[in-house]
């Protein structure tokens, strides 16, 4: 069980654009990609992180023929997963390669349209629109399209889903069950989540302000992010880093709220650190979950402060760029953390002015900072149901060109 697992390819789509290059330039620009919602009609006045392409445009980009109701989740996921595979440069013939994807809304955008008709008359609504409803449908479609079917599954632990998909993939490679896995997550904006988070009163009408004293909620986003994970036997174009540690823990406090002392997040981070064999001072950057809700940031801040005994490494929430991409967040933000690790940048935490009351003096990275060599980065994703998952990516010396 000591096998190293490497990241050999990256793919992402967010409000900042399609492809990992768009993510890098978006983060370097320091400009938010958040804006008003245009994808569908809603009575809510919200700011969101929309991918600026219609479904038709996304289908063309992904090389799909028209005439089918692809869910937006499927389209975003296919674009990002195909990019991760292509980036690896691997010829998949003869490899045991799997696809493990996370999603929390699945094909809800299409199901909502179906339901508008069905709700009026239970004999109405086009059944074909429902084929993509189940969370597994987008995963299955993408896996078949990319021919990565040695093992295919879908994980839904709400907003921590994609980190769990990356963990599952890493563990299957370590256990010798697969040679490579494309793992991450995809979620699209839909009425269901806009209304859901609105009903909980945790959407900010302004731009979100993660880890700021005046924060008052999150902005929803959409997108997809995947890593091409592989064993040392698989030859890829480059090796970005290793997956050095990870842990999944449960806060076991409340279905939607986090505990004041951040038990779950502390256990996830400390578990990942313990597995990696690294010390707290080896962590050069944390991409925090940092949704911008009063509860999450307080709980996560307290847990980070406890783990690092007050000496907190540079950290930021990138949700001010993309919004909260829910089930995709762990995939997208793992990619941001890896770009930080390999490019030597610390990403700014947009809209920060004053530190949170619960951890006075806890200040995130405010401006884009170029550092020298980075050793290791930590990324957090936490979700409803107390699900907390953290991953540490480490610079792989041998992968340096």
């Amino acid at each position, binding site marked *: *069980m000591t096998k190293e697992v490497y990241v050999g390819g990256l793919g992402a789509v967010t409000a900042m654009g399609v492809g990992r290059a768009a993510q890098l330039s978006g983060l370097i620009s320091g400009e938010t990609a958040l804006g008003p919602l245009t994808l569908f009609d*809603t*009575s*809510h006045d919200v700011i969101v992180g929309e991918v600026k392409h219609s479904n038709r445009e996304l289908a063309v980009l992904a090389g799909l023929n028209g005439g089918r109701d692809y869910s937006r989740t499927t389209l975003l996921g296919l674009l990002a997963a195909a990019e991760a595979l292509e980036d690896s440069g691997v010829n998949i013939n003869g490899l045991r390669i799997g696809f493990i994807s996370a999603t*929390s809304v*699945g094909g809800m955008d299409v*199901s*909502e349209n179906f*339901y*508008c008709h*069905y*709700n009026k008359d*239970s*004999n109405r609504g086009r*059944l074909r629109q*429902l084929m993509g409803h*189940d*969370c*597994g*449908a987008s*995963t*299955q479609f993408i896996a078949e399209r990319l021919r990565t*079917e040695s*093992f*295919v*599954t*879908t*994980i*839904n*632990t*709400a907003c921590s889903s994609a980190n769990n998909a990356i963990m*599952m993939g890493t*563990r*299957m490679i370590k*256990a010798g*069950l697969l040679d490579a896995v494309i793992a991450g997550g995809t979620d699209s904006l839909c*009425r*269901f989540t806009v*209304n*859901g988070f*609105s*009903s*909980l009163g945790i959407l900010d009408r302004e731009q979100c302000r993660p880890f700021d004293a005046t924060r008052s909620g999150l902005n929803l986003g959409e997108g997809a992010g995947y890593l091409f994970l592989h064993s040392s036997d698989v030859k890829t174009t480059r090796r970005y880093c290793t997956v050095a540690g990870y842990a*999944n*823990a*449960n*806060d*076991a*406090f*409340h*279905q*939607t709220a986090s505990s004041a002392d951040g*038990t*779950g997040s502390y*256990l996830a981070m400390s578990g990942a650190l313990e597995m990696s064999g690294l010390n707290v001072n080896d962590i050069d950057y944390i991409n925090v979950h940092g949704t911008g809700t009063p509860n999450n940031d307080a709980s996560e801040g307290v847990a980070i402060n406890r783990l690092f005994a007050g000496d907190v490494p540079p950290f930021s929430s990138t949700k001010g760029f993309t919004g909260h991409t829910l089930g995709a967040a762990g995939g997208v933000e793992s990619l941001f953390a890896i770009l930080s690790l390999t490019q030597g940048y610390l990403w700014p935490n947009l809209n920060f002015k004053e530190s949170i009351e619960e951890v006075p003096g806890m200040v995130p990275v405010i401006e884009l900072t170029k550092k020298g060599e980075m050793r290791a980065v930590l990324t957090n994703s936490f*979700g*409803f*149901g*107390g*699900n907390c998952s953290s991953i540490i990516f480490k610079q792989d010396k041998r992968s340096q060109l």
Partner: protein
Amino acid sequence: MREMNLYINGMATINFSGTAQERLLQPEPDYKLYIPDAGVRRRMSRIIRMGISSALMALESSGDSRTDAIVTGTGWGCLADTEKFLISILDNNERMLNPASFIQSTSNTIGAQIALMLSDNHYNNTFVHGGSSFEAAIIDASMLAMEGRERILAGGFDELTLTKENLLNRMGIWRKHIRGEGSTFFVLSPSKGARSMGKIVALDLMGKDVSDNEIIKRGKELLESRGLSFSSLRAVLCGRDSLCGYFQDMKIDTEYYKLSCGEYPTSAAYGLWRGVDLLSNSDSGDYVLIINSYLGEASSLMLIEK
């Protein structure tokens, strides 16, 4: 195929089959024994009550309420709450919505609620991949056991709401399949305990549209790798109607278990429960093969040993 060594140290199942009317008439377990707070119980959808209770019943049967991982699988997820929230969006024109059904609509609700009730801070994961969701949870459990976990609570559940029943009816599913829903949980461990009822020794997961012949071939391979054959099995629990005749013709004790539980994405969990139940009256060293297919979506083989 995946070899594993997972002892089953506790288990429980709750199932309902037949039409909506018939399912409603079937007796329910006494949920208040497991979810004592009447208000909490009332706010929970049917699947949440069923899921939590069967999980706690499985722990009870193991004689120990401790767990160090919770892994669940569900193909359909929490449909009733999802639908309730969708209707409220439409009916109330997006205004003054009650978040309760939104909160309970995510597929990880049951795994999370179990952790909450047990104050369990350990690993917690939920698989939502249609007809192979439960099998994915078992694969995760087998890795957790290899990684040193001792008491893994693993289960599969699905609810057949009226809407789901109507939609599957419009798709013609009930012409060939029996309506059903249920929740089944197991306490799994790499170590044999005083209450061990058997162990899962192999699992083979197959993708879409697998033929009867392919399943027979894979079954033979799985058994031959352990020096066994179909005729040496104590029984075949067959969750695929078209295959049952093949084993009956070989004079093998064969049970089409979907007559009891009906068809739903995680019905393999019931098949496993029934298999272990059969082994309880059986001799040490006996094997049962569980074959499951969910519509055309996914098929699996599980081999269990007493």
